[in-house]
């Protein structure tokens, strides 16, 4: 029982990441009709916003300490961070410690800008082009983005830790009365799950309850008619692209403590998130979220030793297997609409 609960928890945080990426992909696809292969790269750039924030806050001046030696035997240069200099060691260190959550403040504007730039500079020329060409151009863009990151940050993963408060784990079992020590769960993963629920809820509320969201939803359903009504749908779509990029970026920032950011992490997520989107049903936002959590949880279950001992290697293929079964049982994924990207 507790083993199963534990795997559900594990599936939730994996699922949150899938759901957030898939949500952005679906937003872009649903509004703009563009298959965005650069979406994984946006997630990756988000993660590097966390690294950048950590570096910015850790910026320091150098003091030469004659008492210590570096690896060549020369006097050691010691770095003292500006934050500590300005705010005193205690607050300064606390700020540095919180660099990952603080990076969200950096990620939202940066990602929105990257999104606007992408949409205005490149993607908008591809609305009327075939999907195959959209794939080629966004894939090319993804390579370019990841190579730029590699150029500046190197190819090695860079650790970006959670704040100390959230660094450890807590006894979830005891919390819900299952006996101590049975379900240990890291704080940060719980934070990530709650965070993603908040973001997903925010996006849905935004689309549901604002005029802007209403127009966009109308545009998703029937672009031409909305255009005929004299509404400038293009500008709104640009904003939607920025929003989708920001969602991917935030997903990346908060994931940094779980997965040390590296420059090719976007590609690793890209394929999975496409599977998620399609399983959820093209163009369906709730479908994307549902499929994200479903696949995350199923993957966790498949990783259990009990399951693996019955079917070896099942954890390697479960996502694809489930995708095949679902697509055969439900032609348009879980919640997909007819006629979207079917020809």
């Amino acid at each position: 029982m507790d083993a199963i609960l534990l795997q559900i928890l594990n599936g939730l945080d994996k699922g949150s990441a899938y759901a957030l990426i898939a949500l952005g992909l679906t937003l872009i696809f649903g509004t703009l009709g563009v298959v965005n292969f650069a979406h994984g790269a946006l997630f990756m750039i988000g993660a590097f916003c966390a690294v950048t924030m950590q570096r910015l806050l850790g910026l320091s001046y150098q003091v030469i300490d004659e008492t210590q030696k570096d690896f060549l035997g020369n006097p050691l240069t010691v770095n003292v961070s500006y934050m500590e200099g300005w705010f005193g060691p205690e607050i300064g260190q606390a700020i540095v410690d919180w660099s990952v959550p603080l990076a969200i403040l950096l990620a939202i504007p940066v990602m929105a800008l990257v999104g606007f730039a992408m949409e205005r500079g490149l993607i908008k020329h591809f609305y009327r082009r075939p999907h195959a060409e959209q794939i080629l151009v966004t894939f090319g863009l993804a390579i370019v983005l990841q190579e730029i990151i590699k150029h500046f940050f190197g190819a090695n993963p860079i650790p970006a830790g959670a704040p100390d408060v959230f660094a450890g784990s807590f006894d979830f079992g005891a919390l819900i009365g299952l006996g101590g020590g049975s379900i240990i769960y890291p704080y940060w993963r719980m934070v990530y799950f709650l965070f993603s629920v908040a973001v997903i809820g925010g996006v849905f509320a935004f689309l549901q309850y604002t005029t802007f969201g209403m127009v966009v939803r109308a545009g998703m359903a029937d672009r031409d008619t909305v255009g005929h009504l004299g509404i400038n749908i293009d500008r709104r779509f640009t904003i939607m692209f920025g929003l989708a990029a920001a969602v991917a970026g935030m997903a990346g920032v908060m994931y940094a403590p779980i997965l040390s950011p590296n420059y090719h992490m976007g590609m690793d997520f890209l394929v999975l998130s496409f599977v998620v989107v399609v399983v959820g049903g093209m163009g369906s936002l709730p479908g994307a979220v549902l499929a994200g959590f479903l696949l995350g949880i199923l993957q966790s279950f498949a990783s259990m030793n009990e399951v693996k001992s019955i079917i070896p290697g099942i954890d390697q293929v479960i996502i694809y297997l489930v995708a095949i079964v679902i697509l055969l049982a439900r032609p348009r994924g879980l919640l997909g609409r007819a006629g979207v990207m079917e020809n």
Partner: protein
Amino acid sequence: MSDLKKGVSRRKVLKGGMAGILAAGVMPTIISKAYGYTNEPTGSTVTFGFNVPQTGPYAAEGLDELRAQELAVEHLNGIGDGGMLNTFSSKALGGNGVLGKEVTFVTGDTQTKSDAARAAAQSMIQKDGCVMINGGSSSGVAIAVQGLCQEAGIIFMAGLTHSNDTTGKDRKRNGFRHFFNGYMSGAALGPVLGEVYGNERRAYHLTADYTWGWTQEESMIASTEALGWETANKVLTPVGAGDFSSYITPVLQSGADTLILNHYGGDMVNSLTQAVQFGLRDRQVNGKNFEIIVPLYSELMAEGAGENIKGVYGSMNWNWQLQDEGTAAFTRSFGEKYGRPPSNSAHTCYVQTLLYADAVERAGTFDPCAVVEALEDFDFDGMGNGPVTYRGADHQCFKDVLVVKGAENPSNQYDTLEVVQVTPRAQVEYAPDHPMFGGPEASLGECNPGA
């Protein structure tokens, strides 16, 4: 009609071209196959091929290997301070190239894929005329390229490859490995682990689900069970899983008190980080502190895992913090050129390049078969690992192995690992027909000079 015209003009051009060539007095000649061996260098230079991952997950490691290889070429050509040439026990090399020929090099990108690595190696052999290929950062690639060099008739000096198979069941006469292997890691770590963690432990293995992971796991189980440890469970994880949480949580419930992570690269960084996040190291099981072990370490992984490696034991081929003069010389010249200490993959590539050059010099020819003879059972010293032998029976170097642990109080950003013990060579030796190394069936085959 226009087609006809075009055809004529094309023919005209061809005719004109041929006439021009003939007029210049150039006749096509078939290059005779009188060579004794593949890519015999005839000019004033000799070309080495450095085949390292430049894109993909191991690009950082490849970059460090490349730095070391360039440094080795400089030292061979007499540029710079000579590095380990000054401390190397063999004095055949004089800093004037190899056999009087200036050393040049070409580089290629393995992408850490066997196919791409072989394509890059083929181009080095067929296009650039390389006599030796060096480098690489995974066992799959090393075994693939080693096989290719065997077929083509040139020498392969393996870079970072840790699987038992490279000099086990996949050993080749034209291939040589300086780096240590999974068996040696196990043999070196075992006694130290017994000393620090006692003889009554239950170990849980998480193992990357491919050849290297399996051989590493096999070696670690053998050496820990010899201590009296129990193996609670061994679980295979998909390569590049990213999130290991669903593999880590069952560890908590298994009653194990030790987690052995047979992972490398990004997988190791992630699984270790996540294991620490799940609070494994804060736990008490069976009245003992829960411990994590990472059998194969690298500096770059340590950097990627950050604080999580503090106090975690593992093994290495070499570390820049060793005190011998060979290490000091290499670290100094590498550090002065690149502003950072070399990693152990850089070290192995540097040493391999020098060893090859030295063997050529001693053999008096680039003929791979003569080089093989010169390297087989060659004893040397002064390269940072103490006295070393290149065993003739399987082309594996035998030398001391380092047991290291994550530094508790790093004094600078490169001081991530500290050397706990230098395990003497005798303790990590094994018979060439050891069952983990292909048993009696494994054979180097014949030397192939190619051409």
